[in-house]
Structure formats: structure tokens, C-alpha cells
């Protein structure tokens, strides 16, 4: 058989490919499957958080901010525990970023608060002197797109079996459930409830008024998303 293969270069190449590919699968797949399983304590995004994630993507935050803490002492001192692949289990797509013009945001929910984000988005240099980040005033005016967020939620639930409405184990031993609304109207109601909690900690009167009137400004969704990064 080997003599035959040696005389037929095409099939020889195919045999080499199959052999190497098989070895690769055996080596890579089990580790990969293990590592990409959700880490205990990771939960899918809620409706408002997903809408905020869309705001994050829309404004290209990932062009300047990474979401990946590497295992170096200098990084873990500043940003917290290094990232694990399982923590991105519900990120579609992941937002690792490729460049840090601004700091990493992987765990920003641990050390920044709603009112800090509010001040910072209005005028970054007012809270971080010398910051080169531009202000994002339109986030306070534009309305978050809950429809798309809900559509994504339903899609990932259907296609990737993202566990909405299921009990998930948390790091402290408790259980948590992330709700997926049954209808679009219900999704809007849920998102508004979440938004009210965020808006209660905010200072901007226009934002408070908008939420009270049933609107969700983009900034509220974005802050909900940033607060969920832990």
C-alpha cells in the first residue's frame, strides 16, 4: 500500500493530510471542548445587557478597549484575575479586541460604578485627567434597540442552546436564572425594569425622565452591560 501511495502523489498528499488532521483533532478537540465550557458563575446576558453590548459594538469600543486579561502579574494586579476561555461562552462574538488604547474592560464591573460611567461618558477628561477618550453625548439621547437584543436572545437560545430561563450555578454556590421573555412586549417590560434600577443610580435628569416615561437611552443599556462585566 505504501508503495502504491509513493507512486501516486495526489493520494499520498491526501493520506498525509488525513493522518495529520486526525492527530490534530485528537490533541486539540478534547482540551478545547473542556476549556470553552462556561466557567461556574458565568451567565448569559439579559435583554438590557445585550442591548448595551450592541451599543458597545456599534460605537466600536472594542477598537480601543480589550476584554482579555492576560496572565501577567502587572495585568492581574490592575485588572483582576486573568481571563479564562469559558468566561466567553455566551459572547457572540467575543470582544477581545486587539489593541489597548484605553484600559482593559474584562472586569470593569468590579471596580467602576454606574455614576462613574455616567460622568465618564459625558466627559472622560473630567474624571480621568489627560484621558484621550472622546465624549459620547449621543448615548444620552439615542434610544437602545431592545427589539434586536430580544431577537439575538431568541436566536442564541434556539441555535446555540444558550441557557435562558434555566437555573445556573454561581460561584458562591447559589443559583441564578436569566430570564428570556416569552413575547417582545414582555422583553420591553423586562428591559425597562432593569433600566429603572440603573437609572436610580444616575444623576442625569433627562435620562431619569426618559426611563420614567418608558424609554431606555443607550447609556443605560451600555452601563448595564459594563456593570455585568465581572
Amino acid at each position, binding site marked *: 500500500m505504501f508503495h502504491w501511495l509513493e507512486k501516486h502523489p495526489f493520494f499520498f498528499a491526501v493520506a498525509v493530510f488525513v493522518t495529520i488532521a486526525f492527530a490534530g483533532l485528537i490533541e486539540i478537540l478534547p482540551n478545547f471542548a473542556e476549556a470553552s465550557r462556561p466557567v461556574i458563575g458565568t451567565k448569559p446576558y439579559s435583554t438590557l445587557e445585550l442591548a448595551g453590548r450592541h451599543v458597545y459594538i456599534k460605537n466600536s469600543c472594542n477598537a480601543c478597549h480589550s476584554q482579555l486579561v492576560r496572565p501577567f502579574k502587572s495585568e492581574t494586579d490592575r485588572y483582576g484575575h486573568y481571563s479564562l476561555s469559558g468566561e466567553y461562552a455566551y459572547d457572540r462574538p467575543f470582544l477581545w479586541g486587539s489593541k489597548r488604547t484605553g484600559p482593559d474592560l474584562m472586569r470593569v464591573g468590579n*471596580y467602576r460604578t454606574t455614576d462613574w460611567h455616567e460622568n465618564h461618558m459625558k466627559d472622560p477628561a473630567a474624571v480621568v485627567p489627560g484621558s484621550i477618550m472622546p465624549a459620547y453625548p449621543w448615548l444620552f439621547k439615542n434610544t437602545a434597540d431592545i427589539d434586536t437584543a430580544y431577537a439575538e436572545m431568541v436566536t442564541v437560545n434556539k441555535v446555540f442552546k444558550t441557557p435562558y430561563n434555566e437555573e445556573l450555578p454561581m460561584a458562591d454556590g447559589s443559583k441564578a436564572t436569566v430570564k428570556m421573555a416569552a413575547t417582545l412586549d414582555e422583553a420591553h417590560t423586562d428591559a425597562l425594569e432593569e433600566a429603572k434600577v440603573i437609572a436610580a443610580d444616575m444623576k442625569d435628569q433627562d435620562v431619569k425622565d426618559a426611563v420614567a416615561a418608558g424609554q431606555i437611552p443607550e447609556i443605560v443599556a451600555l452601563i448595564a452591560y459594563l456593570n455585568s462585566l465581572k
Partner: protein
Amino acid sequence: MNKTVLAAIIVVIAMLGFTYVAVGGAGGMGGENDWVNKLAVLGAVVLVIVTAFVVTKYVRQMQFDRASGKLADENWDGIGEYKNELPFGWAVIFLGMTIWAIWYFLVGYPVNAYSQIGEYNEEVAAHDAKFEAQYANMDDATLKEMGGSIFIVQCAPCHGLQADGMDGKAANLNHRIAEASIKHVIQNGSNNQLLGMEMPMPDRNGLMNANTGALITDAEIDSVAKYVAGGMKGTAGADVFAGVCAACHGPDGKGMDMVAPNIAEFNPTLVANVLKHGKKGVIGQMPAFNNLTEVQVKALGAYVTGLSK
């Protein structure tokens, strides 16, 4: 003389000439005592000559050598292979590699397997050990200096470089407590674990003025807030403080162990507890900072305590 050898000699002479022009002429040798330069040039000359003759040898071999021996039966498009013995050195290396591969597969890799996280853990352990040894017994100045640099990284984004809270965006750490905060705490109560444990302070409906025998009034709140925020100087509000607050916070406002925190000044324990549990007040929420080491918390405590003195 063979043409190839002639070409090699011409190339050598040309290159030596070029070397002489480039570095040898016009004092370019770097003077009488520059041995390093002379050795480098000598090395270049030797390299040129050796290269030329090695290349010549192989070119001649390709031109004139004819291989000989018994051909193998196998033949690929007219290209055959000799049935020569494997060179002894190769055989030894092959066997050696086989033994090494078995060792590597069973012992070498499993026992010495490298991982990024493993290297990270080692690096952190080594750094922590060095850090602890270096800063085991810090004097006050070093402690404050360390606290200052941690402050710039961890605290300044909210409290500002001057620790002034940047126009009310965070607590002003140059004063123990602001008037608005005092009013908020009296109105709403507080449970910020400043003592390191749950120890709720009641809201205004639980604050009795021992002097008047009645609940604290709006006017009294205003005057005591000014009094405490002003560093507990003067007489205005002092009577309210003595009647309402002193029972738990002490007559001087310096607090009591297990009862109430110090509201007259910062101290390292207070700072450590805020860092551990976070804090929620009139300005908003401060998150907990649990990623700091004990020494860093101590340093921050010393720094923040020093700010208001």
C-alpha cells in the same frame, strides 16, 4: 590550472582588495593600538579565503565526481538510489533519538510540562515573596509613598489625583466626612460595615437627642452636620453631637470598637474596611477592592489617613 580555482583566486584577491580599500586604507585600521579592529579585519580575510576554497571544492566535486556502488531495485523516473550502508554516526544518532523520544513521551513532557498559567503562578509567588521580604518592616514614609502610588492607579480614577473627589463625583478624602454625607446618613441610616461587620446605624427615626428627650429635628441635623463636617470645632452643634451622636461615636467622634466608626478622622482600619466591603452613600456606590494585598491595604490606609492631617 583549473578554471574554477582561477576564478576563486581572482574573487579572493578582489575581495581582499575591497576590504583594504574599505577599512584598511587612509588610517582606517583605527591606529596602531586598535587590536579589536585589526582582529576583525583579520577574521574577515580568513572568512573570505575559507569560503572561496570550500565553495571551489564543492563546485569541482559536482563537476567531476562520479558516484559508484550498487543501485537499489527501486527507480523513479530514471532516478535511482544506491544501496549504501547507513553512516555509523547517523545510526547512533537515530538510536539515540529513539531512546530520547521514549523518555520525552513518558517522563520529559509529562513531568516538566510547561504552561503559561504555571509560569504566571511561579512569577507571582516569586514576586510576592520578594515583595514581602522587602517591605516586611516599612517605616511610615515608605508606607505612605507606596500608598500614594497605589492610590494613583486604583483610587484616582474616581477620587481624583488630589483625592478631592473631583467636584462631588466621589468622596473628598482630604476631609473625613462632608456635610451632605452626614445629612444623608442621619436621614437614611447607614450600614457600610466600616467596622468590618454588620452594624447598622438607625435613620432619623431612631436617633434620640438625650438633651431634649425628643427625636432629632431638621434644625439639629443641620447644625450637627456643619459641626462634624467642620472638624468638630466651635460650639454650634456641639450640644446636639453630645446628645445624639456621642453615645456611640464617642464624645470626640473617634468611635468605639465594635460599636461605631470614627467620624472625626480616617484611620487605617476604617480604610481597610471600606476597601474590603465597598461603601454606599449619598454620592453613590464604591465597589470593594479585594484584589489588593494586605501590605497594599496597610499602605493605602497610611496614605489616606495622612491626607486629612
